[in-house]
């Protein structure tokens, strides 16, 4: 594999990693929005 191709591959790998991170964060954000809406301010009012 030439140096140029290798650099391109690594750049593509990095883009894929960023996309994965964004997808994971979006999923987490949706889940937390549902949770907060469902809890309606009672999130911390519970026993240990």
């Amino acid at each position, binding site marked *: 594999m030439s140096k140029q191709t290798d650099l391109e591959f690594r750049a593509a790998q990095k883009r894929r990693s960023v996309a994965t991170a964004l997808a*994971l964060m979006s999923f987490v954000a949706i*889940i937390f929005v549902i949770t907060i809406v469902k809890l309606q301010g009672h999130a911390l009012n519970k*026993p240990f």
Partner: protein
Amino acid sequence: MTQTAASADETQPTTKRLAEWKDYVALLKPRVMSLVVFTALSGYLCAGGDHSPILGALSILAIGLGGGAAGALNMWYDADIDGLMKRTQMRPVPAGLIHKDEALAMGLIMSFVSVILLALTAKSYLAAALLAFTIFFYAVVYSMWLKRSTPQNIVIGGLAGALPPLVGWAAASGQMPLNAWLLVAIIFLWTPPHSWALALYKSGDYAAANVPMMPVAKGAASTRLQMLLYSLILVPVAIAPVFTGLGGMIYGAVSAGAGLVFLLLAWRVYRSRAGDTDGREEGRALYSDKAADNRPARDLFAFSLLYLTGLFAALLLEHGLGLYAPIAGLGI
């Protein structure tokens, strides 16, 4: 014993294709994750109570995420030895598809997210504390310490895999009564015969990676005996929920019937030469033309999965679908 032949960086990259979504799923050990979700859901439903179904679903999701996080952290730490074993060398990190640092980041972020999510959605903070302990136990105590240092690695480390039903139970009720611990005990006692059955016919893999699994460290004959002993304790413990009122008729039938088969298969492994690799194995293979037959170990490994699934599926049917019917005359 902790030294391995390949350094972490030598394990990547060995292939030149971009990681796909299924590689990220593989990083979370989906089969382990599904067992975590399944047993946690059983514990959750057995607990009963008035917990909201939506919060319950989110709690189970959080436990599943926690299981995936622990898997990613394990893959991050074990990348070097995974690359040395045939069974694991195609995992995404040793195969060079996902960088170690990415696996670590994903494991840490998912651990944090799962614990926070469970703290928000569960009945009390106890469940989140238990989940955090479970992830810590699997990633640090088992993966980083026990796995490479003692043949008791999967016995003690098995606690991490045994805790999900307790976490599920605590998520629904905020409590952890005897019945919840009984579910923990079942998985805890199930782990040695299950894992060692695999190790008996994969001992070459573990030896190559210098992992002191029982067949590698103590020999196949000792492993087969210990598997039988654990099975003899496991089966009565798995029937015990019938007497504590947790299991009804369906559970009683499954635990008794499948337990009997489990014992027969464990006895068959004990009487076999499964895992014997050469003449050093107590000198038996040296004087025999017959090659070691690993089929009994393979059969026990396959059935052990069916057995555990059957037990928890019976609880799901009884407590999730309302099919619980106590056996008359039994129960404390």
